């Protein structure tokens, strides 16, 4: 028979039947069911095995606080471990499997752990797996992990997409129970922008699980009516299936919306989940309360659950968890479960009430002053033991037991900013701290106001107050009459006994474990938590923390508030890594920047390299070339022999204007710029405040007050940021304006003896040496298109950089290659660029490593002493200018056949390879087709004086050692004749 435990009523759609599978077996449920409610309806109580002892477990709760009914959802790549059956919305075709058991849920061989439990008490592994120490990583830890694991990952890529987004509101309402709905209604009607989040797929909170009337309507109907009105208001956004995860700074809350978790597969293009950042001006915590159990021996059998959950399964889902039930309570709310179940026709065998006195429940066997001392049943509850007030012990056959130890306000989010919850004796629970996140208040059960009337009133009142803060006038709506029963509780935390009584069911922490922690002096709450692992599982102790704390308080003879409480941190419930990653995965991990010549380079079969977010052509292979070296050697030789073209758009370009722009450049560059004539370019060296070189590049004076600075590709943004800092903070009186133009211009280097001849075919103006000498710059036109020309050289050859508006960049590379055809022009990539700059002895990123000065680079004379510039004073520190310090040198292997390795360290012949003998290192190594061997730049102590010396280049990591000769860093045209040609 299917759904043998399904009874009448509830908010499920019985007109439709859904099929699903659990552990390979087919079952049926209805829309509106959770996996747990559907399984319970089908008579399945056993849903999981516990973490440590592999004890059989069924659901304890009917919500996200669930510690026991933890399952794997779906199959294949979509398999998701450690999900709570109590909140998994049922859909047709849902597949779930139990976890942490072998070979099956009903027969789990690891259940032997339970028999060996005396060996597995709290802290056992700290004491047991101590010797030998080296066994920990290789033997002990793997075994423990295998035994204690929860679900398994699919080890496949998640096929679904996750989005991230941003929302803004005046009032964020966290939780759509009576308090939240009343608040949203108040604020929504006042015209405020309201967002209501609720983790459930059906808004209404406990109103859906209770039988109280609100005015003339049932709670669920009232909730549905309010939800319908809110949905019609354009200023209100209802977000069911959305868990608010945490309170960040400045009124920002994170939330995850499960857009497609209730579908077999997300619709095409749609995300599975969205991680929202909600920017609220005010927020209201109306997240309700979480019931807590009373611990007694073997209180963890399937069929034993929180009384409120037992009632919720009957009222909301039409499920009788057992045909014969009992209730164990220390408060009046537990009595409601008994009356509700009895009203549903369920056989309530007894109510075991720890309190004495007061009225007895009519028509129900109400045992006052009694307690439940134990339970029986192999894979589920079959009987409980009761100790009556007179000491008599009774065994009562039941298949379900509801336990209520009282309710804890769900204040989790209110303590995310380290506010300490406050103890309230009247409800025997903590309420939200007074120093919680700014702008957040609490109402309803989350604030410790447990009656429906109080929830409605406090929710509406809190909304009025929050909006009043914002200058928005709101009025209290007409709220329905609702029950207003006072909280009647006599705290009872656990029942004395010899056996194990579970406190934290997910992490298998018992009352005995807490006692052991106390015995071993781990009495601080934080120590208790870490010693016993209380509250450290995926449920974060939502049902067990206060209970553990209360046991410790009793043992130490202190009150609960004196004992303290642990506070919570985000996320409220576990979040999929995919949701945190969003769309940033695989090729879309970051945006890509394409150069203006990218399309053309791709057509040429270029090999690309990532340079930050840029993709740059590294080399351009030609037919017949089998190694990159062949391509690069060809590009270098062809450039030096005739002409080569390289896309240098990626270098940062900063437009600097203003009447003080020259003085500003004198400030940010170590060398002088203000004296540079219009139409001229100068190489500049930029220092950090501490005198270390920050960046280098050329700056061109395009007009009296107009300059264009170039930076290295890597430092385009840091230099711009630095300049803005200097402009705004250090030199606020200077008339200087800055803007980046990196992207606005497509810029190409044209280098080689035939560079001018090539450009003369394209440029409309005279660019002869006389008209456009070395280091000239100016505005020109290329076949009528506005352009800029700079006569600068990084390769050491006669060279220009020509820039056109980026939209013409693709046409420009094609025009350059076409015009260069008669000169056998080549395109060259970043590898050849690197080879030629090392051959010329130019420093680049490897030399500008954030530790080196101008003096180290052989550019000490560029640091002008005639003016004040950033870094000038500190660059003259004694240690930085000492004789014999690191100087840039050129390096060649004595045997040209031997390759050099970057990072190798210089050592004297015969010196041991230890740090004390270190003389410096090779920074950049290339193969020079011009020299015919590996060549390198390096920093060498007293480098200037060592030219001609032979040293060893030793690399202990690569295990290489090469005899090298120290030479000038200028391997090509040291006199600079070519570039002035």
């Amino acid at each position, binding site marked *: 028979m299917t759904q043998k435990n399904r009874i009448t009523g509830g908010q499920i759609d019985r007109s439709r039947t859904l099929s699903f599978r659990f552990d390979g077996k087919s079952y049926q449920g209805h829309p509106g069911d959770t996996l747990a409610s559907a399984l319970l309806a089908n008579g399945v109580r056993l849903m999981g095995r516990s973490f440590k002892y592999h004890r059989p477990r069924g659901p304890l709760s009917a919500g996200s606080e669930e510690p026991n009914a933890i399952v794997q959802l779906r199959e294949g790549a979509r398999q998701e471990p450690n999900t709570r059956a109590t909140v998994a919305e049922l859909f047709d075709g849902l597949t779930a499997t139990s976890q942490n058991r072998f070979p099956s849920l009903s027969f789990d061989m690891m259940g032997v752990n339970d028999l060996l439990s005396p060996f597995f008490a709290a802290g056992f592994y700290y004491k047991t797996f101590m010797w030998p120490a080296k066994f920990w990583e290789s033997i002990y830890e793997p075994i423990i992990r295998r035994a204690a694991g929860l679900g398994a990952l699919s080890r496949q890529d998640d096929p679904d997409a996750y989005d991230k987004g*941003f929302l803004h509101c005046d009032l964020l309402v966290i939780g759509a129970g009576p308090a939240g709905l009343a608040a949203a209604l108040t604020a929504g009607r006042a015209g405020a922008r309201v967002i209501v989040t609720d983790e459930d797929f059906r808004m209404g909170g406990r109103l859906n699980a209770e039988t109280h009337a609100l005015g003339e309507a049932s709670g669920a109907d009232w909730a549905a009516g309010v939800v319908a009105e809110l949905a019609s208001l354009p200023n209100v956004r209802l977000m069911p299936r959305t868990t608010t995860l945490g309170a960040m700074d400045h009124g920002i809350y994170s939330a995850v919306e499960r857009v497609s978790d209730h579908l077999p597969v997300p619709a095409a293009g749609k995300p599975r989940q969205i991680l929202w950042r909600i920017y609220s001006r005010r927020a209201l915590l109306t997240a309700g309360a979480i019931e807590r159990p009373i611990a007694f021996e073997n209180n963890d059998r399937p069929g034993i659950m929180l009384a409120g959950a037992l009632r919720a399964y009957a009222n909301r889902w039409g499920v009788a968890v057992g045909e014969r039930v009992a209730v164990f309570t220390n408060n009046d709310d537990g009595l409601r479960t008994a009356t509700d179940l009895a009203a549903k026709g369920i056989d309530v065998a007894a109510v075991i009430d720890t309190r004495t006195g007061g009225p007895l429940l009519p028509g129900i066997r109400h045992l006052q002053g009694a307690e439940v001392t134990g339970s029986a049943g192999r894979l589920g509850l079959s009987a409980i033991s009761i100790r009556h007030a007179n000491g008599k012990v009774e065994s009562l056959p039941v298949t379900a037991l509801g336990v209520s130890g009282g309710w804890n306000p769900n204040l989790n989010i209110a303590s995310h900013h380290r506010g300490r919850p406050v103890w309230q004796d009247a409800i025997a629970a903590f309420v939200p701290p007074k120093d919680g996140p700014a702008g957040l208040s609490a109402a309803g059960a989350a604030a410790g106001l447990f009656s429906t009337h109080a929830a409605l009133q406090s929710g509406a009142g809190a909304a009025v107050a929050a909006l009043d803060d914002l200058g928005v006038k709101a009025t209290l709506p007409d709220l329905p009459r609702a029950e207003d029963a006072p909280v009647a509780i006599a705290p009872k935390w656990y029942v004395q006994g010899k056996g194990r009584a579970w406190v934290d069911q997910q992490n298998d922490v018992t009352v005995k474990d807490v006692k052991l922690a106390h015995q071993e002096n781990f009495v601080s709450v934080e120590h208790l938590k870490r010693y016993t692992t209380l509250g450290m599982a995926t449920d974060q102790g939502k049902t067990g923390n206060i209970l553990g704390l209360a046991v410790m308080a009793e043992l130490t003879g202190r009150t609960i508030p004196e004992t303290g409480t642990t506070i919570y941190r985000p996320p409220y419930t576990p979040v999929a890594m995919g949701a945190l990653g969003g769309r940033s995965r695989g090729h879309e991990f970051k945006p890509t920047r394409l150069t203006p010549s990218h399309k053309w380079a791709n057509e040429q079969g270029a090999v690309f390299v990532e340079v930050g977010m840029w993709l740059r052509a590294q080399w351009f292979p030609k037919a017949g070339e089998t190694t990159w070296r062949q391509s690069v050697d060809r590009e270098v030789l062809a450039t030096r022999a005739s002409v080569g073209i390289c896309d240098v758009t990626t270098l940062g370009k900063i437009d600097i204007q203003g009447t003080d722009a020259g003085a500003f450049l004198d400030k940010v560059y170590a060398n002088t710029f203000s004296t540079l004539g219009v139409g001229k370019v100068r190489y500049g060296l930029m220092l950090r405040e501490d005198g270390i070189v920050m960046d280098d590049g050329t700056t061109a004076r395009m007009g009296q007050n107009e300059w264009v600075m170039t930076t290295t590709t890597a430092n385009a943004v840091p230099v711009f940021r630095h300049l803005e800092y200097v402009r705004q903070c250090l030199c606020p009186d*200077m008339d200087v304006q800055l803007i980046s133009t990196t992207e606005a211009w497509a810029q190409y280097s044209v280098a080689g003896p035939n560079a001018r001849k090539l450009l003369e075919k394209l440029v409309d103006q005279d660019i002869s040496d006389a008209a456009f000498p070395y280091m000239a710059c100016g505005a020109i036109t290329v076949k009528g298109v506005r352009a800029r020309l700079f006569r600068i050289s990084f390769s050491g050859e006669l060279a220009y950089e020509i820039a056109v508006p980026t*939209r013409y960049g693709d046409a420009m590379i094609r025009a350059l290659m076409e015009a260069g055809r008669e000169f056998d022009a080549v395109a060259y990539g970043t590898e050849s660029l690197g080879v030629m700059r090392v051959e010329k002895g130019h420093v680049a990123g490897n030399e500008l490593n954030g530790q080196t000065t101008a003096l180290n680079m052989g550019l000490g004379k560029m640091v002008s002493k005639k003016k004040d510039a950033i870094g000038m004073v500190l660059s003259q520190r004694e240690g930085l200018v000492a004789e014999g310090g690191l100087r840039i040198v050129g390096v060649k292997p004595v045997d040209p056949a031997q390759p050099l390795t970057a990072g190798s360290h210089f050592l004297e012949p015969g010196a041991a390879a230890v740090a004390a003998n270190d003389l410096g290192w090779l920074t950049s190594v290339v193969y020079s087709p011009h020299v015919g061997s590996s060549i390198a730049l390096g920093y060498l102590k007293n480098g200037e004086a060592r030219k001609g010396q032979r040293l060893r280049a030793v690399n202990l990591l690569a295990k290489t050692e090469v005899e090298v000769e120290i030479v000038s860093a200028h391997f090509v045209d040291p006199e600079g004749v070519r570039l002035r040609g």
Partner: protein
Amino acid sequence: MADLSLKPITPLGNDLPVRISIGPVTISEVVDTALASLAQRMGQDITAAAKGAGIPLPPAGRWEQGATCAAFWLSPEMWMIEAPFASHEDIVAHLKPVFGEAASITEQTDAWARFDVTGASLPRLFELLCNYDIARHGAGSASRTMMEHLGCYVVIRAADHISVLGPRSSAQSLFHALETAAHSVF
């Protein structure tokens, strides 16, 4: 001899702008606008000159359309001027005579890829893309914001017409982000 004249391409690398429709929205690549930054120099007041030339200088967070040119605020005393590309390709040459040495003007036309998103329910699309409260700010607003790690400007020309200006080199990544978000929402 081969034709060496230069033919422009769009930020997405084509001869003609791309235009796609997803649900109620259309995303169009826009290439017919010239851009220049206009920064008032220290001690100068360009208000009268701008007014005389019909160039709006909107306050912080705003965009305004003038007779020929439009403008949005970039930073204190700095604006981005928009003008028709066909008539203002050399936009600096148009603006320089208006402001002379009272302002610094820098061509920005090709620094940006512009995508115009038109249609209904635009706030729902942009809430997946950036932390800019489209609904609250409304038509006539503009802001710098981040979209998928890219620094962008968002200009709300009308409730059903929003421009996104992003770095031109990342046009494909930005377009992909817009397209993906639109599929996600609609």
